[in-house]
């Protein structure tokens, strides 16, 4: 097992290097250049020459890539052209929020999607099934930004002054870092793990025991979470349904019934675990689309997370930010899928990792 994980991690290295190369090449293939995008009408010939020299953009591109690889190897992602400080600091500022949003959206998709799939499969061809599947088809075809706007309109505007009102944008109140609440004297630099955790909108107040703060920040997450989670939810519901339907027709399910297992036991004990195998794969894969979907969702709901930063970095040709964030997202994606493969071993005894 350890050998397998190690091998998978080693195999991930060429993937990461490939991504490094492609993002590097693609950013440089974009028309216009960072200087002109950043400085707009202030970009004169002389200013740009100075700008390029300062950021090493006057070097030949292979030389830039060589330097870039060297920096990465030392854990230095470089400085942002736009913000003027290190990309690492930007990441610590922005990443926690996106991570929370993604995790909430994922949980939402699983907690709602799997039961919907089970119900549809169990009552297949009934009105419940047809309704759920029509809903799932709608959900999977709705553009994230449109759904986001609609949700914001319905819950933020139409339902204003009712108990169903939800904040249509923004990210809630700032809460005291949990380590201060705990009275820890930690060295919380701008790129430390403490700051990273303290930047989590809902985890930080929860750790700090500030329930009101947690609730306020969580309420700001609900609409983005629903907008972002709807597509994976629909996919998970459809997948759970078809997978469970298939499993319910298997011989061992008939055996379970012949043993005297009650219907509930047949579905939840004998069929469920088998039916979840393909669903777990789908969940792993949708993590990637969630991270990219976060770009649009954050823009719609005015949440300043990775998506928001990445969006403005692309339009501003902020090479270092685009590269760094793409790499981190890719690494997370590779890691999540490794976790899924390992999870398989525990779910299905027939699979052995050699």
């Amino acid at each position, binding site marked *: 097992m350890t050998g397998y994980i190690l091998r998978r991690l080693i195999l991930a290295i060429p993937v990461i290097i490939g991504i490094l190369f492609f993002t590097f090449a693609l950013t440089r293939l974009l028309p216009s250049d960072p200087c002109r995008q950043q400085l707009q009408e202030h970009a004169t010939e002389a200013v740009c020459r100075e700008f390029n020299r300062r950021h090493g953009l006057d070097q030949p591109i292979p030389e830039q890539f060589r330097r870039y690889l060297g920096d990465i190897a030392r854990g230095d992602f470089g400085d942002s052209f736009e913000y003027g400080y290190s990309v690492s600091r930007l990441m610590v500022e922005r990443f926690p929020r996106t991570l929370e949003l993604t995790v909430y959206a994922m949980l939402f998709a699983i907690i709602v999607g799997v039961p919907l799939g089970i119900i549809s499969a169990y009552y297949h061809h009934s009105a419940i099934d047809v309704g759920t599947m029509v809903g799932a088809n709608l959900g999977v075809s709705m553009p994230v930004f449109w759904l986001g706007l609609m949700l914001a309109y319905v819950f933020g505007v139409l339902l204003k002054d009712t108990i169903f009102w939800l904040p249509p944008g923004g990210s809630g109140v700032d809460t005291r870092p949990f380590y201060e609440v705990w009275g820890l004297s930690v060295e919380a630099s701008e790129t430390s793990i403490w700051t990273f955790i303290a930047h989590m909108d809902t985890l930080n107040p929860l750790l700090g025991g500030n329930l009101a703060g947690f609730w306020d920040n969580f309420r700001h997450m609900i609409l983005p979470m629903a907008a972002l989670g709807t597509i994976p939810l629909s996919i998970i519901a459809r997948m759970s349904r078809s997978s469970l339907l298939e499993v319910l027709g298997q*011989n061992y399910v008939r055996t379970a019934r012949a*043993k005297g297992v*009650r219907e509930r036991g047949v579905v939840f004990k004998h069929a469920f675990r088998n039916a979840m195998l393909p669903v777990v794969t789908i969940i792993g894969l949708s993590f990637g689309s969630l991270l990219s979907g976060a770009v649009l969702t954050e823009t719609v709901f005015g949440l300043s997370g990775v998506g928001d930063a990445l969006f403005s970095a692309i339009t501003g040709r902020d090479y270092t930010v685009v590269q760094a964030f793409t790499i981190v997202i890719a690494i997370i994606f590779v890691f999540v899928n490794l976790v899924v493969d390992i999870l398989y071993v525990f779910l299905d*005894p027939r699979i052995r990792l050699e």
Partner: protein
Amino acid sequence: MIDKAMQNNGNNSSNGEHALLEVRGLKTHFFTRSGVVKAVDGVNLRVKRGQVVCIVGESGCGKSMTALSILQLVDKPGRIVEGEIYLEGEELTSKNRREMSQLRGSRISMIFQEPRSSLNPVFKVGKQLLEVLSIHKHAIAKTEREQQVVDLLRAVGIPDPKKRASNYPHEMSGGMAQRVMIAMGIACAPDLLIADEPTTALDVTIQAQVLDLMRKLRDELNIGIIFITHDMGVVAEMADIVAVMYAGTVVEEAPTESLFEEPLHPYTQGLIASIPIMGEFKDRLDVIPGTVPSLIDMPPGCRFASRCRARIEHNLEKCLDEEPELMEVRSGHSVRCWLYEEQDT
């Protein structure tokens, strides 16, 4: 007429012999888009304790569906539309789902054709075996149940049962898996064991062992066994009583010896003639000409009429218009064929 005779035996325990299982006029139909498939269309069956009743017939004749109907495990769109099923005088078709699931695995249990796919791939076999006991014998202490699992595995001839209990189904051979299924079937000492082609997927030596095991269990536990097969060789070896099924009905029912010595129904004759005999050379194997009629659109008259040589030889007109009843031609030997009409009266 045979029905009447059965009815007397079924409810009347005055002769001291209560049939263990009695199926009367069972009809299981499937309501599909292309029509009503009459998979089981009027089956009568009787099983006594200590008896092996073989249901024999070709694929699709309704033998498995008869078995699944007894346990009420017929999947949608099929359901039992008519008939009664008595287990020691207790009617089963009127029982609700909960009552049926209490009965399954404890009083009637069933083993299936594909042992390896009939076991859940994600649970250890010991756990799956333990489950039957946990459902039906929850009064017994857990440690004792675990001990019983090992004892059961030993009883069905699995070497090193303690270790084997923690195997997953994919780590077992087909023969071993079928033994586990049998252990599961007998775990709660049922009255009736239904075996649906339990040896079809196994090679012959394993088949012989499994058949031996089942006979031994019948003798030791005095249970009734319904054994479903399409293999006449297995029938000869296992059965006390044979019921030959064709297109959803029983066409002949007889004690094994009587059936093999003098098969009455032209279909049974064809089946027995089609068994190749070792050492005998034939250019072609004997076959029954034609195919089974569609179960959706059954022609009137005898279901076998279109394939029947005897009908042409004896120039019987009736066969195409009127369906014969099951009639007792000799003691215990009944047949559904117009050829024997005169003898009957």
